[in-house]
């Protein structure tokens, strides 16, 4: 039932960004992915969510091969993600931004929506309720009807998580969610991520705040120059001499 990369290689022109990297995210775990800048973390995340296709190897979910599936197909199968730089729709409200995550559950087609058939109103009510619950849950109760361009940085980060949750994902890929947050906000973020995982969602956490990653992850994978150098529990990875040498420092 895991989301996995099997021996994937990705090249950009002459540059090999990833070479024969394997990683799997199990349901209900927080899987940390760390490594120096340029080690291929975001490339791997883009391969898992479908923005890139692997040159070799495969992306699988529950034994099903996804290597050539589009981003949209993977979203419909239950893979959600957030972005390093939050990508919100600035002219829409916070609630609308969260509701867009419910696209795959909106069954009413274009004409059914245009003629406001019962299915369209039903979808709308369902998605609104669901998105509102997630917004309250991640702590954006105060901003639900605000325009998204008026949000501060931390609010944007949590809104992206709420949008991803509205997709009802089985796997959630978080690209540096703690970037630019204060220590108190990182604390809240950790709580949110733990709750998401404990509800059975598999979380892949790409992050530079290594203390944070070691604290909330069940397993950690370390990349360096496009290859896995260590994989294991936070304690094992923390003590690995190679990881200390290339990334953590003495």
């Amino acid at each position, binding site marked *: 039932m895991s989301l996995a990369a099997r021996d994937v290689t990705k090249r950009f022109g002459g540059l090999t960004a990833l070479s024969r990297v394997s990683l799997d995210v199990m349901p209900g775990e927080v899987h940390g992915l760390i490594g120096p800048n340029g080690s291929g973390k975001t490339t791997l995340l883009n391969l898992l969510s479908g923005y890139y296709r692997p040159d070799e190897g495969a992306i699988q979910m529950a034994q099903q091969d996804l290597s050539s599936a589009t981003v949209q197909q993977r979203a419909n199968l239950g893979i959600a993600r957030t972005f390093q730089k939050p*990508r919100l729709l600035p002219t829409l409200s916070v609630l609308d931004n969260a509701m867009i995550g419910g696209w795959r559950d909106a069954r009413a087609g274009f004409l059914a929506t245009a003629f406001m058939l019962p299915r*369209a109103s039903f979808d*709308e009510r369902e998605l609104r309720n669901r998105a509102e619950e997630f917004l309250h*849950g991640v702590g954006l109760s105060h901003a639900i009807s605000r325009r998204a361009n008026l949000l501060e940085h931390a609010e944007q980060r949590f809104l992206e998580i709420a949008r991803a949750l509205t997709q009802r994902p089985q796997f959630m890929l978080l690209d540096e969610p703690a970037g630019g947050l204060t220590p108190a906000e990182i604390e*809240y973020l950790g709580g949110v991520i733990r709750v998401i995982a404990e509800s059975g969602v598999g979380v892949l956490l790409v992050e530079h705040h290594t203390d944070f990653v070691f604290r909330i992850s069940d397993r950690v994978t370390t990349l360096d120059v496009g290859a896995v150098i260590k994989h294991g529990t936070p304690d094992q990875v923390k003590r690995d001499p190679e990881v200390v040498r290339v990334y953590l420092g003495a």
Partner: protein
Amino acid sequence: MKVSHRSWAVAAVIAVLFTLPWWSGDLYKVHLAALICTYWVLISGLNLVVGYSGQLSIGHVGLLAIGAYSFAILAGTHGMHPAVAIAASGALCALCGLLLGLPSLRLPGFYFAMATLAFALIVTEITLAQGNLTGGGVGLPVPGFPPPFDTPRGSYWLILAIASVVTWLTWNVARHTWGRGLVAVRDSVVTAQAVGVPVFRAKLTVFVFSGFTAGIAGALFAVLQSYITPDTFVFDLGLFFFVCIIIGGRGHILGPAIGTIVLTALPEMVAPLAKLGNFFYGLLLLVVVLLVPEGIGRVFQLLLERFRPRRGESHVVKPDLERLSRAIHAGRAIK
């Protein structure tokens, strides 16, 4: 409360528009109002393409021309019932929208605009060249609506009714999941993909819909003109539709409606402006783009927000983990 306020406003607007022939004074103004409603039938469909999904079509005048000629040929030359001919014009233009959209909607913004421009120019050439069908440069007479819509007032009411229905349809699309998906296509394709919006299919769907409304508008426009030639469909008209939406504001419905009314009516009502038609458009466009780049619609939104009670502008994020957990479990229980 908010919803009932809105219903009252809508009812008031409909009442004002319905009674227009009685209070407007002269028949020319009724004709002008009918023309505005006709333009609006096209522009409200085009608004989903330009204002919501951000595809810069400047060639909808070509679809308007196809709709107008097909109505003139079907209802005039072949004597088809006007109601059927209007629907057929809409269907034909929806098909043209599909054929134009299939290759061109994959092009990035500027190139798509050029493709629609080329389409409009080709349509003009075809109407000139196919003399047997279109009357060439001489043009075609257009039959009127059947009674009771054959008077200026009658045709105004018919066109108003059609415009209201089209407005309602686009309003529904814009205000629901589809509208959000279109805005995502406009503002962040990456986000649209991430949540599963089929970007190309969404663009194509609204483009076909805008073809349909352009075809209907073409038929109504032909009747109002009563005689059409290729010169009726100058390229400026296509630019005019586009400018109405930009001045009105992308992602709004009320804004472009006001844009359409102002840009159509002002040059007609204020005599000195008639001579300066294009100058006036240019000036207004410049003022809007420089001062309120988000358009008239945004100005209205900001005015409305002024009258709403302001709550504290807190920015503190404080998760409620129990509620979050319940919500995720509820979501995962859905099959």
